[in-house]
């Protein structure tokens, strides 16, 4: 009996990011706006977080709308037609449906069908998780071009009176296209998780509590909220243990960033740009110190205007950096995302 030789997808040696796109919603929320809801001041918020404004999307603009706008720009920037896309990966924790995914609808809107499409739930590390997967798919010959989107409408999941995280958060979308390259364009991904710290950044309650309320199993909103001192409202919103997260972010993530440099075989001297997740300017500044980044490395501080946009923050920062300094195209950038899970991911990439 003869056995037909099984064919495997042909491997591709090199991958790279071909183009980037962004969408920043038009509503701008200032620190003075935020101080209507929490007892604070513009100065206090700037000093502790670096944030001056954050963009937020109006009610009629969805996660998919924002993802579409960023993706269209990324496709044009990459010079790729949507029909060439071999996979659509959307990193988000704010698409308000457990299923179907935002990615499947995005692929349809863009004309990328029947490309496989799925969402990634990795919060602020979501974009770097997407790059890890997109890189692997192109490498392995599973797809030729992969669209990776980081998009969040965090304003749907905040409590304006919360002092732990809500005032930091903004909405937005960033997208890149990954494809084959002539030379190495994406270094090895250093990524991981630590679920033992799942409560460090969390939602106030689960959707099952909302169901119980809606079904009448719980008589009143106040009764439902009684079990949980964290939120008056029944609607699930974000909370965090700021100081613990700060400590983890700075000291553990500086090590991960160093591992990404080592894995890529480059040193901090070789970098042109540092693109950390835009969580807090003091985390960014402290990481720069821990990593001993030389003066010539441009450090993205998009957080000042954009706030913390979770999965969207790194591609938004990349987009802005290249818009303001187009000469950095083709140079090396270190990107690192970290957040709720806890989860983290980092790579050294060649900027598109």
């Amino acid at each position: 009996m003869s056995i037909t030789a099984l064919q495997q997808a042909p491997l591709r040696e090199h991958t790279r990011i071909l183009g980037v796109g962004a969408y920043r919603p038009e509503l701008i929320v200032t620190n003075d706006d935020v101080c209507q809801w929490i007892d604070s001041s513009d100065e206090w918020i700037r000093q502790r977080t670096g944030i001056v404004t954050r963009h937020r999307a109006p009610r009629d603009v969805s996660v998919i709308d924002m993802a579409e706008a960023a993706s269209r720009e990324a496709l044009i920037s990459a010079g790729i037609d949507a029909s060439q896309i071999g996979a659509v990966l959307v990193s988000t924790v704010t698409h308000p449906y457990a299923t179907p995914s935002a990615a499947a609808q995005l692929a349809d809107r863009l004309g990328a069908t029947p490309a496989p499409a799925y969402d990634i739930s990795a919060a602020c590390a979501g974009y770097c998780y997407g790059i890890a997967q997109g890189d692997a798919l192109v490498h392995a010959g599973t797809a030729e071009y992969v669209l990776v989107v980081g998009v969040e409408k965090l304003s749907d999941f905040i409590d304006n009176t919360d002092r732990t995280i809500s005032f930091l958060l903004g909405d937005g979308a960033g997208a890149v296209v990954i494809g084959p390259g002539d030379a190495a364009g994406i270094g090895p991904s250093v990524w991981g998780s630590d679920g033992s710290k799942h409560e460090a950044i969390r939602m106030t309650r689960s959707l099952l509590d909302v169901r119980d309320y809606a079904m009448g199993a719980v008589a009143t909103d106040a009764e439902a909220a009684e079990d949980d001192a964290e939120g008056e409202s029944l609607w699930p919103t974000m909370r965090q243990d700021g100081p613990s997260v700060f400590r983890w972010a700075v000291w553990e993530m500086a090590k991960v960033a160093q591992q990404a440099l080592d894995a890529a075989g480059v040193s901090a001297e070789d970098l042109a740009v540092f693109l950390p997740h835009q969580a807090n300017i003091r985390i960014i500044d402290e990481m720069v110190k821990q990593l001993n980044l030389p003066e010539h490395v441009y450090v993205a501080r998009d957080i000042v205007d954009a706030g913390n946009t979770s999965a969207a923050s790194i591609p938004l920062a990349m987009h802005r950096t290249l818009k303001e300094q187009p000469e950095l195209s083709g140079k090396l950038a270190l990107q690192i995302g970290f957040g709720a899970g806890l989860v983290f991911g980092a790579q050294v990439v060649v900027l598109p």
Partner: protein
Amino acid sequence: MASNEEILAGLAEIVNEETGLAPESVELDKSFTDDLDIDSISMMTIVVNAEEKFGVRIPDEEVKNLKTVGDAVTFISGAQA
């Protein structure tokens, strides 16, 4: 092993580096928040630098008990023993 005086001097150095406060203003009975005006983020930076300097581990849940400089000196001294 550092003496309490050495721990205090080391802490004062760390606080000075993070906040710019004069080392001599870092005294045992001073509260980190009320007297020295150190916010929670700076406190974490101080804690991590103290861990490194004195070779001890200060868990997150312990940090909120360190209200005064003296509390920190006592904890570090005990953790070193």
